[in-house]
């Protein structure tokens, strides 16, 4: 059995009187896709931000194992090390592509910038890699010099995914990646994420309120409510045989498709 890539325990964080995280524990192993589901305000986005080091918990630890096998405490590693980690071994896909893209840099530049951040220097090689990734996310390579603010929402999101995955991170955090998109665009994006995750063997921690997306993508599911993980397990079991009252309500509220 492989050691976990990320291991969190005892995470707590309050916003005033509200417990955003209440004693949350979680681990994710290489190649595993874990979805965090729950309604707005359940604490799932806060959890993602704490796990990825963007936010500090009041209590608890998050430990990350690097490719050499050394284990680091995410909230004690310092800003420079954290930035390096987010540029190389980790990726973060934001709900709003504008938060993950540089809107005044071309599509090719957005992808190339990540490659240069991990040491790529050869212009021709970077451009070829950017072209290949545009094709991989079904963006016409002719638009490599186009600006992302001229792209549709779905294209922007696919560009953000290409920018994130080009450095072959081992762990990718995704915050409602299909959130702001039309339903038809969502299906295409979900399928693309599913294919890329399987091909690249990525570990993914994805926050979503979309139960169907979680069923399609995730091996394992965590259900959050009021800052607590109320139920977790194999995706199809949690959805088909939910034990907790809240999970039963969540599943019963979804229209069958």
């Amino acid at each position, binding site marked *: 059995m492989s050691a976990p890539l990320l291991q969190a325990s005892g995470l707590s964080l309050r916003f005033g009187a509200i417990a955003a995280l209440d004693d949350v524990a979680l681990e994710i*192993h290489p190649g595993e896709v874990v979805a965090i589901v729950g309604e707005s305000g359940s604490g799932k986005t806060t959890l993602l931000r704490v796990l990825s080091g963007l936010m500090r918990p009041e209590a608890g630890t998050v430990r990350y194992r690097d490719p050499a096998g050394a284990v680091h405490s995410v909230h004690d590693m310092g800003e420079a090390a954290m930035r390096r980690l987010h540029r190389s071994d980790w990726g973060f896909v934001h709900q709003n592509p504008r938060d993950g893209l540089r809107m005044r840099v071309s599509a090719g530049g957005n992808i190339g910038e990540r490659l240069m951040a991990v040491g790529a220097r050869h212009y021709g090689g970077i451009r070829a890699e950017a072209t290949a990734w545009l094709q991989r996310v079904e963006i016409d390579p002719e638009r490599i010099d186009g600006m992302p603010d001229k792209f549709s929402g779905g294209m922007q999101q696919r560009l953000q995914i290409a920018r994130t995955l080009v450095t072959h991170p081992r762990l990718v955090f995704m915050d409602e990646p299909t959130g702001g998109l039309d339903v038809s665009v969502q299906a*295409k994006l979900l*399928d693309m994420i*599913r294919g890329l995750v399987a091909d690249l063997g990525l570990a993914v921690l994805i926050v979503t309120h979309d139960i169907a997306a979680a069923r399609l993508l995730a091996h394992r599911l965590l259900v959050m409510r009021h800052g607590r993980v109320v139920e977790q*397990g*194999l995706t199809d*079991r949690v959805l088909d045989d939910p034990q907790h*009252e809240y999970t*039963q*309500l969540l599943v019963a509220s979804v229209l069958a498709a």
Partner: protein
Amino acid sequence: MTMGMSWSIRTEGLGKAFTLHLQGGTRIPVLGGVDLGVAPGECVALSGPSGAGKSTLMRCLYGNYGAGEGRILLRHQGEILDLAAADARAVRAIRRETLGYVSQFLRVIPRVPTLEIVAEPLIARGTPREAALAAARALLLRLNLPARLHGLPPATFSGGEQQRVNLARGFAPGYPVLLLDEPTASLDAANREVVIGLIEAAKLAGTAIIGIFHDTEVRDRVADRLFEVLPMPAAA
């Protein structure tokens, strides 16, 4: 396989009840004290009235429903494992290597071509991609799904065609234990014969099979014995 290997899958005192929190916590017992063992190469057909819990038992055996009590023992990569107590990652490994399930309906994944759907479980267990695709192609053709359909996602296929995709996906890896839920329900006579042939070949290869067969003719031809699932007393 070693001598004295009397079973591939065995349940001990398997029980399952559902607690409906949205209906005031009503508790519905469905299965209790199920002891079922199936030997390599044996096919057991579940019998019993509709609603008795045959499908619930199948879902428990696949880990889709959590077992409420008892054990579900499987021989997985040389070890005996209890599926009822296995965590999510262990269940995934068991499903990848040891335990297959052909449900009544294909859960269609948007945009994924038929050939990829069938080859996927083979690739997941390490079969090289080209070999996996070739095996998938051969099995689809054997199930009379013409090559022109292999590149299409099955979303628009008929019920019978989707079921044959499902069957190909379930039979392709040659799992040691295979669960079949109504495998011939929407098939014509010719394809029913193909499925009977697949089941017989799997048995010869040592697969333990548990099935629900409403088609009694198919059942009588493939099943070595019946296992009766009886409804639980209402006031449990």
